C-alpha cells in the first residue's frame, strides 16, 4: 500500500495553508472606489460638488468684480439674457449695484464652509456620544438617550434663531449652532452599530491583548463605522446648507454685507415679481449643492446596503 509518509512539520503546514488562499483578489478598498465611480448618482453628485469647491476656492481669480464693491449708478441691472442686461455684468447687479455673479461665487465659500463645518461638528458630537452610549451601555446609554430625546423634542430652527440672536451672528456662531443641533442622526446609527460590534470577538481579543476602552473604541470600533458615518455626513451637509440659508433668510444667520446665498434671497425678496432672477439664481445654487450632497449620500447608502445584502 503506497502510503506517503510526508513529514508534517510546521513548514509543511505552511505549504498547506498557502495552498488554500481562495483568490488573490485586489485589496477591497480599491474595489469600492471603482464601484463608486460606476454609480451615476455618485458621479454626478461628486462632479457638482467638486465644481462648486473649485469655484469657491478660486473665487478671487474667477470673480469679475469685488463682491463688496458698490456701484449705485448700476444698481439692479438684469442678467445679460434679459432685456436691458449688460454683458459686463453677466448675472446683473443687486440693489446696491454689486456684481451678482461675484457675490454668488463668494457665497459658495460661505455655504460650503457652513455645510461641511456644521456637518463636521455634528459628526464629532453625534459619533462620540453614539459610540460611548453603544459601547458602555447602562447609565451612559440612558443619559445619552435622554439627551437625544430632548434634542428631538426641540424645535430646531426656532432654537437656532434664538441662539444666534442671543450670541450674536457670525459665521463661526452659525456653524456651531447648526452643528450643535444636527447630531441625532449620527448618534442613532453609530450607537446601534457599536452595540453590535462591541460583542464581537475581535473586541474581546483586543481587550485580551491589553487595550483600554479608548483604544478599543478608536482603533477597533470606529474604523468599522466609517462607511455609515460618511453616508450620514454627506446627507447632513445638505441639511446644514439649507439651515444656513433659512437662518440667513430670516435675518439671524450671515449678516450683510457678507455674501451668502440665503441672505441674497432675503435681499431679493422685495422685488420677487419684478426681478425674479435675484431669487432664482441663488436658489439654483443652493439647490445644486444640496442635490449633490444628497446624490452622493444616497449613492453611498445604496452601495452599502448592496454590500451588506450580499
Amino acid at each position, binding site marked *: 500500500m503506497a502510503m506517503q509518509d510526508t513529514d508534517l512539520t510546521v513548514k509543511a503546514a505552511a*505549504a498547506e495553508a*498557502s495552498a488554500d488562499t481562495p*483568490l488573490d483578489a485586489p485589496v477591497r478598498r480599491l474595489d469600492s472606489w471603482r464601484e463608486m465611480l460606476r454609480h451615476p448618482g455618485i458621479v454626478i453628485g461628486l462632479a457638482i460638488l467638486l465644481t462648486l469647491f473649485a469655484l469657491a476656492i478660486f473665487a478671487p481669480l474667477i470673480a469679475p468684480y469685488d463682491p463688496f464693491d458698490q456701484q449705485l449708478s448700476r444698481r439692479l441691472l438684469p442678467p445679460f439674457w434679459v432685456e436691458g442686461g449688460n454683458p459686463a455684468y453677466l448675472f446683473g447687479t443687486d440693489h446696491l449695484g454689486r456684481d451678482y455673479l461675484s457675490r454668488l461665487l463668494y457665497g459658495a465659500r460661505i455655504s460650503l464652509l457652513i455645510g461641511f463645518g456644521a456637518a463636521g461638528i455634528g459628526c464629532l458630537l453625534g459619533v462620540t456620544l453614539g459610540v460611548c452610549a453603544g459601547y458602555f451601555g447602562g447609565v451612559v446609554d440612558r443619559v445619552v438617550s435622554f439627551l437625544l430625546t430632548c434634542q428631538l423634542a426641540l424645535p430646531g430652527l426656532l432654537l437656532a434663531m434664538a441662539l444666534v440672536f442671543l450670541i450674536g451672528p457670525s459665521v463661526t456662531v452659525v456653524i456651531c449652532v447648526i452643528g450643535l443641533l444636527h447630531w441625532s442622526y449620527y448618534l442613532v446609527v453609530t450607537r446601534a452599530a457599536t452595540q453590535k460590534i462591541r460583542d464581537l470577538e475581535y473586541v474581546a481579543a483586543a481587550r*485580551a*491583548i*491589553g*487595550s483600554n476602552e479608548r483604544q478599543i473604541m478608536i482603533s477597533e470600533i470606529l474604523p468599522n463605522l466609517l462607511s455609515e458615518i460618511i453616508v450620514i455626513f454627506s446627507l447632513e451637509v445638505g441639511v446644514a446648507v439649507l439651515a444656513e440659508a433659512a437662518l440667513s433668510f430670516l435675518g439671524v444667520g450671515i449678516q450683510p454685507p457678507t455674501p451668502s446665498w440665503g441672505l441674497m434671497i432675503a435681499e431679493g425678496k422685495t422685488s420677487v415679481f419684478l426681478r425674479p432672477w435675484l431669487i432664482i439664481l441663488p436658489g439654483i445654487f443652493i439647490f445644486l449643492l444640496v442635490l449633490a450632497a444628497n446624490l452622493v449620500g444616497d449613492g453611498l447608502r445604496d452601495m452599502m446596503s448592496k454590500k451588506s445584502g450580499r
Partner: protein
Amino acid sequence: MKAPQTPLLEVSDLSVTLPVRESKLHAVRGVSFSLARGEALGIVGESGSGKSMTSLALMNLLPKSAERNASVLRLGEHDLLAMDQIEFAKSVAARRMAMIFQEPMTSLNPVYTIGRQLTETMTIHGTAGPKEARERAIDLLDRIGVPDAKNRLAQYPHELSGGLRQRVMIAMMLMNAPDLLIADEPTTALDVTVQASILELLAELRKELGMALILVSHDLGVVSQSVDKIAVMYAGELIETGTVKDVLSSPQHPYTRGLLASIPAPRGTGERLPSIPGTVPPLFALPSGCTFADRCSYAETKCRAAPPPMQSAGEGHLYRCILPLNTTGSSVRTAVSAKSQIHSHDNGSLLSARNVSRTFTVRAGLLGKGKALKAVDDVSLDVAQGEIVALVGESGSGKSTLARILLGLQESDRGEVTISGRPILSISPFERAKLIQPVFQDPYSSLNPRKTIGQTVMRPLELHGIGSAQDRRKEAERVMELVGLPRRLLNNYPPQLSGGQRQRVAIARAIVLQPKILICDEPTSALDVSVQAQILNLLLDLRDELGLSYLLITHDLAVVNCIATRVAVMHRGRIVESGEKDAVLRTPRDPYTQTLLRSVQTMKFSANPRAADGAAGLQ
C-alpha cells in the same frame, strides 16, 4: 406504490451556475443520482462543495440570478424541468417534496403561533380544512415527541428551545405527508444530545411513512448513521456514490479517504490527525482536469489533462478518479511519529480556578422580579504547564462565561483565579496579556474586517511598545510562518481569507506576545473537518515548539479525544466530572457524561485498513 424500477427522484446532469460580478461560478456540475421510494441518501461535502446548492436546485429555491440546467429532473410523475415556479409551488412544494433547514431559530416566523404555521401548510394547499389540519398537527407533534402538543399550538417560536423548534419544523414539513424530505444540515446548529434525538426521529419517520430522505451534511458521522446511500461532493461534482457500506468501508476516491481519515474519532488513541492540505477551490472556470488534483498527493500529469469520468467499483458504487485502485492511498499527510510527545505536567498548576461562581440576574418582563441564573457555579479547575485541558459542555452550560473569567475579561462573584500562583485581578491587563490569550470560535467575527492581517498580528506588539516598526514586522512574519501562513497575506484583509486561514491568523495574534496559556473557545467548530484537522495539528505543533498550555473549550468529544490530556465536563454551570482523558471518556461516571458520549454520532462502518492505514489507529 409504483413498481420498484421507477425511482421516485431522478436527477441527471444537474448543473447550477451563479453569476458573481463579471464571472460565473459553476457551483454544481453534472450531478446525477436517483432515489427510490423510502430510500435515504446522504450528500456529504465540505463548505463550497455544492451540496446545499444541489438541494436548493431540487426545491426550486435557488437565488433568482442562478441558472439551473439538467437533462432529467423528475419527481414521480412530475417533470420538474417543465414546471414553472407557480405550478411547482402549487403541486410539488410541501405536498410531494419538503425541505428543512439548518437554522431552527430563523426558519419559523416569530410573529405567528406555531399552530397557525403548522395548519397553514395544509389549508394553503387546500389539502385539509382548518379543523382537520389542527388535529393532524396535534397528532404529528405528539408523534415526534413534542410534549403537551395541544397547548404548544398556541405558543410562539421564541417560547421553544432549539431542539423543539427543529421538531416543529419537521412536523410542519410532514403535514402534507410528502414523498421526499430534504434535510439540509438539520442538526448542525443543535447540541449533540439533541442532534441524536432528531436523527433518530428522522429515521423512525422514514420507516413509518415510507418517505424518501435526502440528508445534506458536512458530518460523515451524522450521515452514516441514518442513510442507505452516500454521495460525496467535491467542488460541485459528485466524486463518489454508493451504499453507505461500500463508500465507508472501501472508499475509492482519495478525497473520500482523506475525509474519512481526518475525522477525529471519539474513541481513538489521541494521535495527530491526518489532514488534507488546502481547501475546496472556487470554480469560476470549468476545470480542465480533476478538481481535486491540487490537493491530492497522488496526482499525476494525466489527472490534470481531462476531467476524470465516473468509474465503477462494483454495483452502484461509482467514483471519479482515473488512478488505478491500488496505487492510491488516502490523500492525507500523517505525522512522522504517530504520537506527539507527552509533556510532563507535574510542575504545579499554571492557571487555576478555585470555587469560581458567577450569577446573572435575569429579569422576566418589564416589572418582573429578577431571577438569579447561575452561569458558573463553584467551579475549580487547573491547567498545568504543557497540558491540554478540555472543557466540555453544551450550549448554555456556562463554559464561555468561565472562559471570560479565566481571561480576566469578566469578574467572578466568588472564588479566585490565579496564574502562576498570582491572583488574576492583581495582574494588570498589560501583564496579563503576556500570560494568557484567547482564540475564539468564529473566525469571521474574531478579526477586525477593517484591518490588514499584518495590522492585526502586529497590534499587540505595537500596544505593548515592543520593538521598532521594523522589528514588529519581522516578528509578525516569524509568527505567520509558525502558524503556517505565507507572509504575503500580511497585506490582505480578513474577507479575502478562508475560514481556516483566519483561524490561523487569530492564533498568530494570540501567540505573538508569547503567552503561556491559550484559552481556545471552540476553535474548530466553524471549520470543515479537513481544515479542523489542520488547526488541531497546528495547536499540537505550537505546544511542542513554544511550550504552550491550552484550555480547550468544546462540545465535540471527538476533538477532545484527539488532542486533550485531561477533560472536565461542565453541565449547568458546574463541573460534573473531570480527570485524565482516558478515564473520563472510557469509563464515565456521571450520567450526563454518559449521555454525551452516547450521543456522539460514530461512524457506522469502519474504514478498510487498506484504504487509510495512516488513519487506522483512529477507528
